[in-house]
């Protein structure tokens, strides 16, 4: 059996926090015993409230953070065994805010070409061609080649970020809140682009978002995180049609879909409800 594209095995991570300059050190568990697999072609959505460990998990997947315990495996090999550049070629990532993730003093060509320039392969001319091709793939007109991020709109900048992530032709793209800084109409453009790219280039995605409608629309599988653990994981249709964990239910209840006159749902967010969510057995289906 071929190993999954990415696998996390019993990942636990603690951050050390210190209170005040001379204060005592304390360990805070951000991720607690997480197991997950992302198969080739899957789109895994990772959802959860702020502080639930989503971004820590993302940093571990990218090899930017060594977990305190457990292992992250890419194509069956530990992420830590890959040289940094080798890993960067296999895993691309785009961040939430296209305003701060692009260097304002570099041109679009420099930004998109940076990953291949780092590898130092090909001639400047062939690299420029590859940048052009990638720009075409993400729908950026060639006239932007010499533009600076400051001259572009939010949607165009996010396209630059996607082009930069794709230029090394990675198999896995990790997206951390890819559209939450964008307007509705631009969000639709970026989501459509991601779906199209997945089809044309057989990409696999991990998408972190707190927008449940985006997750429902975009993913094949969902992992719901609560207090550092995955409390529910299954195929998206099943999670959205028939949530098993009370926290998943709460997330679905708080979705404000277009429903004129339906009003704002009433949620139970008191301490008792939180304790019940913490103690409820997890529901994880892997296939």
């Amino acid at each position: 059996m071929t190993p999954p594209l990415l696998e996390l095995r019993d990942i636990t991570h603690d951050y050390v926090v210190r209170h005040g300059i001379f204060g005592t050190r304390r360990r805070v568990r951000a991720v607690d015993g997480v197991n997950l697999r992302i198969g080739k072609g899957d789109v895994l959505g990772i959802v959860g409230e702020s502080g639930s460990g989503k971004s820590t998990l993302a940093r571990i997947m990218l090899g930017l953070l060594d977990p305190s315990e457990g292992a992250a495996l890419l194509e069956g090999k530990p992420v830590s065994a890959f040289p940094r550049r080798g890993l960067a070629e296999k895993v691309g990532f785009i961040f939430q805010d296209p305003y701060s993730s692009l260097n304002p003093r570099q041109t679009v060509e420099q930004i998109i070409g940076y990953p291949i320039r780092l590898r130092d392969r090909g001639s400047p001319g062939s690299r420029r061609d590859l940048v052009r091709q990638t720009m075409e793939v993400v729908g950026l007109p060639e006239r932007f080649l010499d533009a600076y991020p400051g001259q572009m709109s939010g949607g165009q900048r996010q396209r630059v970020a996607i082009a930069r992530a794709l230029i090394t032709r990675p198999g896995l793209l990790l997206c951390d809140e890819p559209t939450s800084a964008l307007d509705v109409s631009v969000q639709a453009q970026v989501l459509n682009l991601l779906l199209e790219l997945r089809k044309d280039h057989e990409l696999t995605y991990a998408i972190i978002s707190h927008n449940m409608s985006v997750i429902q629309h975009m993913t094949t599988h969902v992992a719901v995180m609560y207090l550092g653990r995955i409390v529910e994981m299954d195929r998206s249709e099943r999670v959205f049609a028939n949530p098993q964990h009370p926290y998943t239910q709460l997330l679905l209840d708080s979705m404000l879909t277009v429903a004129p006159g339906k009003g704002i749902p009433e949620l139970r967010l008191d301490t008792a409800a939180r304790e019940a969510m913490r103690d409820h057995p997890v529901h994880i289906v892997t296939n």
Partner: protein
Amino acid sequence: MLLNVKGLSINLATQRGTLSAVQDVSFHVDKGETLCIVGESGCGKSITALSLLRLLPASARLTAETISFNDLDLLTLPEADIRPLRGNRLSMIFQDPMSALNPLHTVGRQLTDVLLAHQHVTRAKAAERACELLLKVGIPNPEERLQQYPHELSGGLRQRIVIAMALMCEPELIIADEPTTALDVTIQADLLRLLKELQQALGMGMIFITHDLGLVSRIADRIVVMYAGEVVEAGPASAIFEHPAHPYTRALLGAVPDPSHPRMEPLESIPGTVPSLLSRDKTCHFRGRCPMAQDICNNRISLQTVGADHQARCIRVGAEDSQ
């Protein structure tokens, strides 16, 4: 009518020339009513809100036919008479609770200051009122919270405090500028429900500014859709969601990922970008991005009547059935 705005235009002087941020915008809010101003970045929705409190930057020039609040003419009211209104009869909730709170003062000080500024009450009475309101916005142990500084609180708590602060004087009109976009979805739903309940209990008028159409569908009585500084559609929420008349409104509705939309199928997106507000040409501003544009769209168009109290700025209104 609680608030009546007619023919509001705002020009901003920039280095590259005069930018027409808002052009001929009219709307009104009744007591106990929620008006949602919907639009994307740069459409002029936030600056419209700021202008009501007269909080525009110095480079802005405002003209209007009418801006009246109850029996007051906000257009001509001297600055000295505007100040007693702000935070008192007219309140604003800003998007980012971190920048709306002063990091150097305790929560209690900031809450009581609002009341002390507008009413003749003792500090103790003001603190009592602050506790009462914190309980109302769902914060347990209010006495303890009053002693804390903003940085000691989570984002959700901070935004609750900002809401409490806006309600200290029981305003007649509350203006909320994307008050929940920075929060977790569960907290968002909880806070919106709370805000709506308080609004109904106090009979406040509310102007809610957002680009989230799902949210709008849940809370709006009336809607104003803005595009490039202009109102492109206005009317009762039910009419706009059932029969959106302007192509921009329809496109926005099609662009929202929604469970009713087939999964992993392309969403409707709006090609192109918003036109520059520096030089307005004499055409329909949405023409360049409109799937139904035709030659006649090269002419300026005023708001057309679609139905009872429902208008849209499109030449095709009435010319064909909405699709």
